[in-house]
């Protein structure tokens, strides 16, 4: 399956996780990895599955590299009804009031444009005991399986 990992990052931690996911799945799939800052909503294609990896920054905001993409979704309201995505969030529960608000905002913007979200939005907690990749790999396996069904691609 064709998979694009799109990351929104401020400190680089989401970029590192996105690259880890790419390394994990590129043997079995056609995977590329791209910064949301270099992605336009018009680039999103119906025959690819999008794995979004996004942090939260500031007071529950999108991280800097996801902000232009988020703004483009808000402004242009493109029709994404053929686009399938799943989203993994990075956050820090020390800031509990805004914990994982960034990925939540991004998911809401995507679905508001009609995009189809597969699987749950998982939130990693930087102040918790788990490593992000230990949560992200099982999540990615599960949502890739869902996407194969949704996109009608034999496993």
């Amino acid at each position: 399956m064709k998979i694009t990992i799109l990351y929104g990052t401020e400190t680089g931690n989401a970029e590192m996780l996105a690259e880890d996911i790419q390394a994990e799945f590129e043997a079995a799939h056609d995977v590329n990895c791209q910064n949301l800052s270099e992605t336009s909503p018009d680039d999103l294609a119906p025959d690819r599955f999008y794995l979004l990896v996004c942090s939260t920054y500031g007071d529950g905001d999108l991280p800097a590299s996801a902000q232009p993409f988020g703004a483009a979704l808000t402004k242009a309201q493109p029709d994404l009804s053929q686009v399938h995505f799943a989203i993994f969030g990075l956050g820090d529960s020390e800031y509990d009031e805004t914990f994982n608000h960034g990925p939540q905002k991004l998911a809401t913007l995507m679905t508001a444009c009609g995009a189809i979200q597969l699987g749950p939005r998982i939130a990693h907690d930087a102040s918790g005991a788990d490593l992000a990749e230990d949560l992200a790999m099982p999540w990615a396996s599960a949502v890739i399986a869902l996407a194969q069904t949704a996109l009608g691609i034999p496993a």
Partner: protein
Amino acid sequence: MTGKICIIGAGPSGCFLAQALLKSAPGLEVDVIDALPVPFGLVRYGVAADHQGTKAIARQFARIFERQGARFLGNICVGRDITLTQLQAAYDVVVLAAGLSGDRRLGISGDTLSGVYGAGSLTRALNEHPDAPPLPVLGPRPLIIGNGNVALDILRLLAKTQAELEGSDLGPGPSQWLAQNRIDHLTIVGRAAPERAKFDTVMLKELAKLSDVTIQMNDIAPSATDADGEKLLQSLTGLDGKSDGPRQLIFRFGLTPLALTGDTHVRAAHFSNAAQQQVDIPCSSVITAIGFEAQNDWLPRDALIQSAADLSSGRLGPRLYAAGWFRRGPRGTIPEHRTDAQILARTILADLDPDAGRAGRRALGQIKQVTDFDGWLRIDAAETQSPPTGRCRSKISSRLRMVQIAQQEGTRQ
């Protein structure tokens, strides 16, 4: 592309720069030197012990040494163990990313009284930096001067209960010190009006969770301001009256420091308010958190910056660059330095004119007791294998002990 690059300082700016350089040009030899036997600088010794989520960026930096091929060379003091000139002769490029570790002084009468401490120095002591002075006796009424996030870190740690420090890496000494402090009034004073304070609102929100304090907001008046100022005012007023604890946490704004007074130990701070009236605040100690400056002890930072060829691009001179706070002064958060480092990496790669005859790290061969990244991994393992209850790490604070553990097995470079 080839070339030998030496980055002085293994803190966030130096690490982000090594990361950006090696991402663009994986064939480079990038050596990251630090005066301490351990890497990550501010992440380990500046970021507060209860902000483990922020400290988790160290995992990203570790990749630079584990996978991208950068070399860590710790326990080398440039200026003492090797000169900057020697490094410039040995490497195609030298980058100064040594940060700013000196506390800026108030520069008013009484600022040398006993009982006056710099926030950076106190932060390093709380983080068990090997060169930090002992933690001081603050008395019942410490006064923090400064309205930025460094001031908030100190304020929050001083106000936290032992239970609220669970999960941090605050060491036994600092933990005991906090438990024994008998603070009943903790005051924080800023020069600017409240809507122009440099606090991050997300860090103010953390204060609402403190169980042991009652927050008093003073000097807040409605004022014409922008959206950010409005949000800040809302955050501040939202804290007023939280959380019914016995200790008073008092915010004051718009007060310009005039003098500190006391016989030999500080007893009061004197300010001027917006109406030019004098405001006196009694205190048992003063913690200044008004910014950082170069210590200029081994590296003549201020002279290098003054003679810089083009400071905005990071060029100090031929094949010599500055990054991070060392370049731009004590402003900007950790991620802002990531962007800066990416820009500087492009500049360096555009300028780079490698000379294969340069010695590179062989020039460091005579320096004794150098630690490497494997050595850091041994220290890290020793610190995390059996931390005390409620802590995620037990820091080794002795430089000698760090070097011993780093060199316990394997060979050093």
